[in-house]
């Protein structure tokens, strides 16, 4: 059995067992659905963070905008539909991320991360203030999960099944992607952009495509999340949420394995659900654990040691340009 088949099999088994295991430990099907949705979002983010080596604080923006776009499409044009608004929102996110990415990707490294930070702040401001479009502070509600054919998705288990199938599809697609020649070039860019350029790859184009794929997958997760909760709020576009997504990817081990982010999501959700029972300050402890992970986790720092060999250290000898 190849490693790809094993990964897919693991994914399928976990997706099948998740709602039952969650029920056994007293968590709801809605929480299980949220786990799958966050897995989709972080899988998308990891294409950029883990495979291309670009740190984005901007993925909450795509997540939130995906939610808004799908909800607005359903409310205004496609009543009682699920699949079409979701596809529509993915197209919108792809188009927007292509424009934003073309602009932001002109800068590299830290500058890129800071620009995504500013972009998220801008999207948050707009979705918070543009009450006519987004409902502002109250959030955007008044839509349904709709139907697929004759199947009503209002049932939480039915909706879980749909999200799980989509999640599996995303896993399959991204697995194919990262093992394709395209994915290999992304890893080459992560390891040493200059060398990838010298090999004759159009690095900028590869990065833009990775950016668009990453944003679109995260937007898809946002759309599904909107339908899960029947509401899209400005909080889903906040920098805090971006940071939580990043934390999940980092805790999952970045580019250790494609399923890494999934582990991070499970950790995050279980931590939140179990800690919020006893203390309202679970974010404090989660933050401390996140710091510990970045400071001491071998996967994270060894990856960086490899990368900083490319000449990003400050007090070390510079590598030749």
């Amino acid at each position: 059995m190849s490693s790809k088949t094993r990964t897919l099999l693991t994914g399928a088994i976990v997706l099948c067992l998740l709602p039952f295991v969650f029920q056994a430990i007293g968590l709801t099907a809605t929480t299980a659905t949220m786990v799958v949705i966050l897995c989709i979002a972080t899988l998308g983010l990891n294409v950029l963070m883990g495979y291309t080596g670009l740190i984005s604080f901007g993925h909450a923006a795509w997540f939130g905008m995906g939610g808004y776009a799908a909800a607005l499409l359903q409310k205004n044009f496609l009543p009682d539909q699920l699949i079409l608004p979701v596809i529509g929102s993915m197209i919108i996110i792809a188009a927007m991320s292509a424009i934003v990415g073309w602009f932001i990707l002109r800068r590299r490294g830290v500058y890129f991360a800071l620009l995504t930070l500013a972009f998220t702040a801008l999207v948050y401001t707009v979705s918070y203030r543009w009450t006519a479009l987004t409902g502002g502070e109250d959030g955007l509600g008044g839509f349904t999960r709709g139907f697929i054919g004759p199947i009503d998705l209002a049932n939480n288990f039915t909706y879980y099944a749909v999200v799980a199938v989509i999640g599996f599809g995303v896993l399959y697609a991204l697995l194919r992607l990262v093992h394709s020649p395209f994915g290999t070039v992304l890893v080459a860019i992560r390891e040493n952009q200059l060398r990838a350029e010298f090999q004759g790859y159009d690095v900028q184009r590869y990065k833009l495509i990775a950016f668009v794929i990453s944003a679109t997958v995260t937007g898809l997760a946002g759309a599904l999340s909107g339908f899960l909760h029947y509401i899209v709020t400005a909080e889903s576009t906040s920098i805090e949420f971006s940071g939580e997504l990043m934390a999940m990817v980092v805790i999952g081990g970045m580019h250790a394995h494609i399923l890494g982010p999934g582990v991070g999501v499970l950790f995050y959700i279980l931590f939140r659900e179990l800690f919020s029972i006893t203390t309202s300050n679970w974010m404090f402890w989660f933050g401390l654990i996140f710091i510990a992970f970045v400071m001491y986790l071998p996967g994270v720092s060894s990856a960086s040691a490899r990368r900083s060999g490319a000449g990003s250290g400050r007090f070390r000898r510079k590598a030749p340009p």
Partner: protein
Amino acid sequence: MQLFFLFEQIVNGLVLAGYYLLIALGLSMIFSVGGIVNLAHGGFYALGAYLAVTLTPKLGFVPAVVASPLLIALLGILFERFILQRFYREDPILSLLVTFGLAMVAEQAIRMIWGASPLSQVLPSFLKGGVEIGPLLFSKYRLIMLGVVIALLASIWLLLNRTSFGRVIRAGIQNPDMVGALGIRLQPYMTTVVMIGVGLAAVGGALFSPITTVHPAMGSEILTIAFIVVIIGGLGSFWGVVLSAILVGVVRSVTVQYVPAAADASMYILMFLVLLLRPRGLLGERMVKFES
């Protein structure tokens, strides 16, 4: 009359600029010497404000505003020793992640200690009131703040440009390897830079506590603006940061008056315009290590 009004807004914009400058300058210094993007900077700013509010009933307003930044500067030593020092040799992305986590922890710690509801700081009566200059009316406290910011700015400039300490710092920004070759360790200097940087942020928090609301998320709110100021000004440039803080402050305060809906968006638009025309900011220099 219209023109006087505009002038008044510009002066208010300068006060705002001073406020942004206090936070952005420390951010820029830590970044250009240590190569660390300190996302926890807003946390120090918020802690400075909270400490000042807490100390005011015990010490009085002015001593509290002086004491709070000093305490935060001491905290900055711990921050540099135990956290930042591990990351000078690492990929800047790692310090980005760590300080982001730290910002999260700082905000939650503030919630745990002081509660989630906003606090208010009372201005002592001798600082209240206005000053009339010709037909214009300015708040006394805002003018004093502007004076304090200019004094601090001047002393930082003198420190960087007229002392041997500043010479090492400037050399460290330009070429850390050569500084090392001359037998000078940059790390002790970094401690001082971080102290000054987070201390300045705390000065901002303490000074502005009477005229803004003191709430747990204030740190993350100011951080985005501070970064925009640094990005517009150009990383590693003293005058770039000053120039861009003035630009952002004045633009914001004028748009608040004439197009209030666009006040928040104005600085983003400004940033995108500047980056389109000058990708490294107004006065930024090319620094290879931050672009890989």
